[in-house]
């Protein structure tokens, strides 16, 4: 297990090198660097050059990249060009908001999709199953930035029940963004739950459990659900991790001050250290959640642990 964990963490290294190189090269190719947005007409060439040098932008891209990686090895993510603040500090300011949105949308998603998925699987082929299938495809097909806009129209503009954006109203302000992010996820998780439950419901041990006189409720909620849990958990946690990477549009639509919006703005402003540092942090978080998912399997399904053990034995023998 420990070896596996270490291996997973080591695999982050090529990813981090690749991502940062990609950002540096892409930003180099972009027309105009960060300093070009600061230049005014009155400035002399020397002043422009000095300004560029003050950001270290006078050096060639590869030299800057090597410097950046060297600092990264010392735990320094660099300083943002735009706000002149350490990237780590900026990231820490925003990550709380993104986490809140990710948690809220995952809760919305799980509360809706798992009961619906179980119900659909138990009543396969019924009207309810068909309706939930159609709703599932519909939920998958709504572009979520548009859903966000429509929610703002319905609940903020026409009815003023909920704030249209920002995060000043505590729990109220997270509701619409969470629904926006959660809708597509709910659709996917509902389908996953349905098919995982369909596979499990066919198993013989459920018949045995029923024959022993276990209540139907317990058969479904304990015996069946626990065995269907692996794919459900895997999808739910992948989606949770995805919230850290992919909620940028929702954050932009709602003006939600999270890391997604921050990195989009950073790229637009050519703020290389901020974009790069935020992306690296996101990758680390996503990969740690992935690792936690794998380790959680062992808790949910003891069979996985035996697989690890037997793989080890096999290696030793072979």
């Amino acid at each position, binding site marked *: 297990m420990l070896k596996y964990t270490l291996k997973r963490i080591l695999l982050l290294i090529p990813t981090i090198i690749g991502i940062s190189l990609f950002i540096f090269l892409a930003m180099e190719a972009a027309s105009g660097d960060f300093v070009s947005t600061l230049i005014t007409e009155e400035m002399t060439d020397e002043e422009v050059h000095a300004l560029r040098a003050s950001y270290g932008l006078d050096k060639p891209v590869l030299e800057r990249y090597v410097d950046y990686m060297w600092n990264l090895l010392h735990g320094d993510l660099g300083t943002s060009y735009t706000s002149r603040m350490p990237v780590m500090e900026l990231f820490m300011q925003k990550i709380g908001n993104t986490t809140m949105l990710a948690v809220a949308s995952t809760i919305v998603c799980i509360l809706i999709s798992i009961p619906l998925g179980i119900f659909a699987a138990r009543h396969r082929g019924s009207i309810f199953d068909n309706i939930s299938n159609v709703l599932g*495809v519909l939920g998958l097909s709504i572009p979520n930035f548009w859903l966000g806009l429509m929610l*703002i129209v319905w609940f903020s503009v026409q009815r003023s029940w909920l704030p249209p954006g920002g995060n000043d109203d505590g729990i109220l302000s997270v509701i619409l963004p969470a629904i926006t992010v959660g809708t597509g996820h709910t659709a996917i998780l509902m389908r996953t739950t349905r098919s995982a439950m369909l596979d499990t419901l066919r198993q013989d041990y459920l018949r045995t459990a029923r024959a022993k006189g276990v209540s139907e409720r317990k058969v479904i909620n304990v015996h069946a659900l626990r065995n269907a849990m692996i794919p459900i958990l895997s999808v739910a946690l992948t989606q949770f991790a995805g919230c850290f990477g992919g909620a940028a549009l929702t954050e932009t639509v709602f003006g939600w001050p999270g890391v997604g919006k921050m990195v989009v703005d950073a790229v637009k402003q050519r703020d290389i250290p901020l974009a790069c540092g935020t992306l690296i942090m996101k990758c680390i978080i996503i990969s740690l959640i992935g690792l936690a998912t794998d380790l959680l399997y062992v808790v949910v399904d003891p069979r996985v642990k035996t697989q690890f053990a037997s793989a080890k034995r096999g290696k030793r023998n072979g």
Partner: protein
Amino acid sequence: MGENTVKKKNKNRTQGQEIWFRLRKNIGAMVGLTVVILLILTAVFADVLFDYDTDVIGYEISERKQAPSAEHPFGTDDMGRDLFARVLYGTRYSLSIGAAAVLIGILVGVPYGAACGYFGGKVDLYLMRFIDIIRAVPGLLMGIVIVSALGQSTFNLILAISIGQIVSIANITRASVLTVKNQEYVESARNIGLSEGRIILKHIIPNCLSPILVQVTLGVASAIVSASSLSFLGLGIPVPEPEWGALLSAGRGFIRQYSYMTLFPGLAIMITVLSLNLLGDGLRDALDPKLRK
């Protein structure tokens, strides 16, 4: 193709007829297919329906910001342009951008994934590690970075969203090549001395087509959403072209008083994506050999 299939019994159908027969029984897929055909027709005949210069980009200030009416079914925008004409004309942009991105995805992703799956070992390891790195960057952000780097144009937009398509098509091709390559007929082809290239092209890829076809259908849907997301952020097609995401982005400024400006372009995206998803799901079921009787 379809008329005879209903009367004949299962045994006499060719593979294509069999798939069509099963697809026809799926109501969702048929609705999806119909809408997709209508959308393609709209895209092809957009300039017969509307004159680009006067109806689509020509503005009339006296008619601006009108709510939906008989004359302007979707209302007019802040420049007095008829949104019905713009949304319908936008079909041409959104569909062709989606299709072009997926085409690039096929041209690059299929050989890439096939090489990974067929050669395995070190080749697979390194090629897939590269894909993993690309996947570590969220798709939207990848698009933003690429469009920022290459400049804002329709071609660069297509290029930016094709990256995601390449990744998913390469993955699905790799997975299906892995299952096909150990089949006995591939073994026989190798034994009679066919070249590797010929084996991949003639014997492996044709047997991997079903999952790729499904992925392509769903891929067009996701490419359309990606394209409109980038346009929505102001990084897509330059104004005044009536791409759906750009229409949404323009309407967003007037969301308080004139919410219809954002309603219709979004509905257009949703209907298109929904139809493609229904068709893709139907195809997946129809092409699944496990369901064949």
